[in-house]
């Protein structure tokens, strides 16, 4: 049964050879026409001498001077041209209202101010409403008026952490109780959450500090608001 197919194929070849010559020529010529370059037809000029009665027969978009001119309005003034750095401006204005002296900002600016709060320091914060909170400073977020710091302490053997906004109007004072003995080599002391590195409670250090402060005040005799820095 495999015999007839090769024969058929040969026959097919013959058939293509036996095609009339005229048909083959026609195909070639058709191909050549498609590849030929024809320049794009240019639109003709509008006839200058045209009776007005014919104008109505021409489509409106082709009639001379028929198109109504659209009025183009200038775009509204962009906000970026009037205020280049909007976030920066808000930040600046907030800083001026929340911290007019720039004292509090400098207290946490650990990149520039060498006397600022550093991570690892023991910090005590008093609030306008609520009890004061003291703890080890684990991290400082410098974000302009949104600057905040993380304090960690152990109250009745339970670790408590608090993020405090440095420039919050609720924060009455921030005091450095004790500076870290050595500069910490990390910017964020999150490892101090592990029981192995946990400092435990800082209440003793804070009470000692408060007692000393009280003593200093007694010698000086009510000198303003103590060691508010």
């Amino acid at each position: 049964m495999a015999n007839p197919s090769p024969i058929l194929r040969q026959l097919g070849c013959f058939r293509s050879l036996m095609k009339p010559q005229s048909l083959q020529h026609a195909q070639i010529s058709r191909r050549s026409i498609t590849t030929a370059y024809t320049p794009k037809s240019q639109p003709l000029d509008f006839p200058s001498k045209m009776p007005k009665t014919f104008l109505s027969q021409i489509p409106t978009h082709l009639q001379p001077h028929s198109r109504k001119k659209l009025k183009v309005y200038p775009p509204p003034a962009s906000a970026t041209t009037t205020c280049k750095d909007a976030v920066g401006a808000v930040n600046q204005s907030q800083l001026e209202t929340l911290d007019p002296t720039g004292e509090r900002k400098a207290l946490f600016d650990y990149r520039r101010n060498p006397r600022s709060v550093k991570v690892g320091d023991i910090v005590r914060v008093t609030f306008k409403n609520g009890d004061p909170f003291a703890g080890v400073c684990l991290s400082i977020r410098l974000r302009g008026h949104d600057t905040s710091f993380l304090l960690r302490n152990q109250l009745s053997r339970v670790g408590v952490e608090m993020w405090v906004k440095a420039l919050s109007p609720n924060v009455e004072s921030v005091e450095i109780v004790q500076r870290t003995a050595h500069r910490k080599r990390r910017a964020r002391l999150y490892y101090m959450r592990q029981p192995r590195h946990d400092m435990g409670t800082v209440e003793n250090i804070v009470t000692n500090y408060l007692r000393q402060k009280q003593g200093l005040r007694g010698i000086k005799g009510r000198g303003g608001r103590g060691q508010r820095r």
Partner: protein
Amino acid sequence: MIQLKSMLNCIDNSGAAVVECVNVLKKKRAATVGDRIVVVVQKQRNFASEGAGGSISNKVRRGDIRHAVIVRVRKEMQRPDGSSVKFDDNACVLINKSGDPIGTRMNGVVATELRDKQWSKILSLAPLHV
């Protein structure tokens, strides 16, 4: 973020030490400080009965189902002024159906958020607020 199967410390003297949350009440989400939950007592505190010479018996037993109020959570809580507070453990206080604490004393710090949810009885029992 307290939900089904969360294990909490019980910080009152009701006799429970560790409880497991089985339901969060009046909420379709995870519970936080001040929320009421249903718990099962998993571990009893045994020193309460010994230490007081048997006068204060454990008010709850292992396997009891009780209501509780969450007083501390690990998940940080945002305060209205932008500051946030978190604790190192999850803790609760057992209450009865009417909302009064079962225990008479508490040891440990609790979150001040309880005041917003009108749990003043628990706040007055607590030795420390944060």
